[in-house]
């Protein structure tokens, strides 16, 4: 049977992007430890509404750790202290009765706060639109088994493709860099035979777009620590290699000028 917790929450409240924000203190009582972190916030919101206060906006949707919508800083750590876990899958049994929990939105210049704990992560979509795809118009595909792909290659691509696009890597990074997100998408496609024709065009376009919005990587590795899907830092190395190479490969030849 579940135990219950009494907690003090310090939650960032901010009415709009250009409005000043501040921490507000709340107490929640009798939270069952089987509840998820977001269910704990649901309960708080119900209490706020009962008392006539405007509830806290926080991002969430699937609550299965796959859609990537949720994400808040819990005691200074993106998605909280539990390794490889999105905050929707973090459960209150990981906390102790009497704890104070500090809850903030993702902090990054590229992710402006929209309200309370909700931020705008659309810069990540711009990176994908720049080159995070294979150009195969519908109907143009050859038979799926025409190109065999070694199992290990497919598995590695899948490891990279598991990224849920939550932005925890950016929030955790002292530079607010988006290298882990970009590298995950890039390596998913660059490692597969289907991704080869556009490999260097993709590498240059995605990285250059990323640089417009986000800080630069200085190899802290905080992104990996925060990633709910434990995306490997190796992909950043692969990306850097392909990016450097792309600058050579993509140079126009004399005949093309």
């Amino acid at each position, binding site marked *: 049977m579940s135990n219950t917790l009494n907690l003090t929450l310090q939650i960032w409240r901010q009415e709009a992007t250009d409005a000043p924000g501040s921490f507000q203190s709340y107490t929640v009582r009798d939270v069952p430890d089987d509840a998820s972190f977001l*269910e704990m916030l649901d309960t708080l919101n119900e209490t706020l509404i009962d008392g006539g206060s405007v509830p806290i906006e926080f991002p969430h949707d699937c609550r*299965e750790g*796959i859609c990537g919508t949720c994400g808040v800083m819990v005691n200074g750590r993106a998605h909280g202290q539990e390794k490889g876990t999105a905050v929707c899958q973090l459960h209150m049994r990981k906390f102790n009765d009497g704890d104070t929990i500090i809850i903030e939105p993702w902090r990054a210049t590229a992710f402006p706060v929209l309200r309370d704990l909700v931020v705008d992560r659309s810069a990540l*979509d711009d990176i994908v*639109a720049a080159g*995070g795809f294979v150009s195969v118009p519908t109907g143009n*595909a050859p038979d799926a088994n025409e190109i065999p792909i070694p*199992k290990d290659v497919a598995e590695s691509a899948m490891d990279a*493709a598991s990224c*849920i696009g939550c932005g925890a890597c950016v929030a955790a990074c002292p530079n607010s860099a988006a290298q882990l997100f970009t590298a995950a998408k890039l390596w998913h496609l660059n490692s597969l035979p289907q991704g080869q024709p556009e490999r260097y065009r993709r590498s240059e376009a995605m990285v250059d777009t990323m640089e417009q919005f986000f800080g630069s990587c200085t190899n802290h590795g905080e992104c990996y620590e925060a990633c709910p899907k434990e995306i490997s830092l190796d992909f950043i190395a692969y990306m850097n290699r392909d990016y450097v190479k792309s600058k050579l490969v993509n140079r126009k030849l004399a005949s093309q000028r």
Partner: protein
Amino acid sequence: MQETTEDASALRGSSLNGSSLNSQVPDGPMADKWENHKFNIKLVNPSNKRKFKVLIVGTGLAGASAAASLAELGYEVEAFTFHDTPRRAHSIAAQGGINAAKNYPNDGDSVHRLFYDTVKGGDFRSREANVHRLAQVSVDIIDQMTAQGVPFAREYGGLLANRSFGGAQVSRTFYARGQTGQQLLLGAYQQMMRQVGLGKVKLHTRMEMLDLVTKDGEACGIVCRNLVTGEVTSHSGHAVVLATGGYGNVFYLSTNAMACNVTAAWRAHRKGAFFANPCYTQIHPTCIPASDEFQSKLTLMSESLRNDGRIWVPRNPDETRAAADISERDRYYYLEEKYPSFGNLVPRDVASRNAKTVVDKGLGVGPLKNGVYLDFADAIKRDGKATIEAKYGNLFQMYERITGEDPYARPMRIYPATHYTMGGLWVDYNLMTTVPGLYACGEANFSDHGANRLGASALMQGLADGYFVLPYTIGDSLAPKLGTEPVPTSDPVFQSSEQGVRDRISRLMSIGGTKSPDYFHRELGKLVWNYIGMERTEAGLEKAITEIQALNEEFWRDLRVLGDTDTINSSIENAGRVADFFELAELMARDALDRAESCGGHFRVESQTEDGEALRDDEDFSHVSAWEWQGEDTIQVKHAEELAFEEVPLSQRSYK
């Protein structure tokens, strides 16, 4: 078969108005229908496609694949999602896989077999021609997604791996670990984002459709609310496509994401689109049981787990021993005993109802005695822990995270939960609703799954509609409109629709009651689950209608929505969605009451075989029930589309 009483028939108000629906199914032999149809429908010349604007609402598998494909063909496309990015759509959460009649394993699969299985699995309540087309294009989907870089599972030789899934007798399911939906959605999303980058798709994020706009009976646009600024705006096009998913969240506790709702489809229904078979809902057998009253949603554990897990409960209702200590003799493997040939792999509706039966008998397990065991001990003994981990590792991890229990050491606890809705907007063979110019794709339409959907068929249908059906069929209604401009958003039809949306928001904000939208949603969900859930009775459904109406009345009297409308305000978003769920729930009950037979996910206690299996009434109910909106205070009128079964002979499903 239960005789209908006069009272019930008055309550139901379903007297057919005489008209039957034209499904536009083409003539000719089943295998040639789609080819013939593609030849016979109107085409839009490539250089004219850019003169047509198509609005697509929803950017999941169906919406994103349609947006990408139509933009590639040259149409001007605007795509709308209420999420912050299209990649959040709930297609992403599908775990198990996607079916296709590739027959790569050489085990006897074919287009005809997939077609046959789907019609039979749907308990003979789907339209044969649509299902056949679905089976035909399934093979192209796998080719398309693989070419786009979807990392499907592979064998050591580098070729694609397949598995058997959800009761299929052949291995036709392609998968990407337990994240097939995620990988397919990302594939479609990337393809659409390419078109966004090229400027061919205009993407509107955080925009919720709140009304369909029609002029002279035809769809001409939509009205949306910007979820960040609260601004209400009109958008006009030559055609509107709804790819807005299903309505499973009417149950409150479901495996759907929190934001899934029926609003877009329901608003279209109120503007003339018939809503078909709302009582066909799928209860998925393998979900994690609820742990307490605060629970906000239920989590699905992929049905692929049933391939290796054995389902059982203790024979003794007062059993106190831990699962591992209970001897074989004292275990009731109820599916294996009742269905020796299919065992744990019986279709979803059968597995779910049997779980309910044993739990209702008091044999349930877990602290609330609300689950059954799904046990991997034998599989681990047989194949080794490493093999099981490679197959299901991420699912086991997820289970452990949610329950705090280690499924390698003790059996999982599972219980059915609402997962998918087979009903939806009625569409013809072209996927067009009863409103000309309005189309519905994916889970939002009713078309292909009949009364029960087979596992790994939802991803298939969403992508079939978006990639390979709509891009052809939409031309048929667009071609005659060549040379016409979309209705300007300054037209009175848009202005009055916008005003209606603003008035409704003001009305919800101004009630000033005491209870939150979530409170009403939770209470509504309990009614729907109790009366329109796994088992339905005439008395229960009549009660449901009365109680839903009473709660709805309370909603409009005692709702409390705080905050402002010109900012992010999830309370006002939810309030509008819950209001629509009330109207839908009532129609579900009426439809379930009207359909006095059992079929697939719709089980009427009055209509069962001696063994307690679903008993169809083909004489009276071999039809699609499509309901037409009649206004706020009038009960919908039912139209019937008669179903003919020419290729797959009607038979009683048996999985013994």
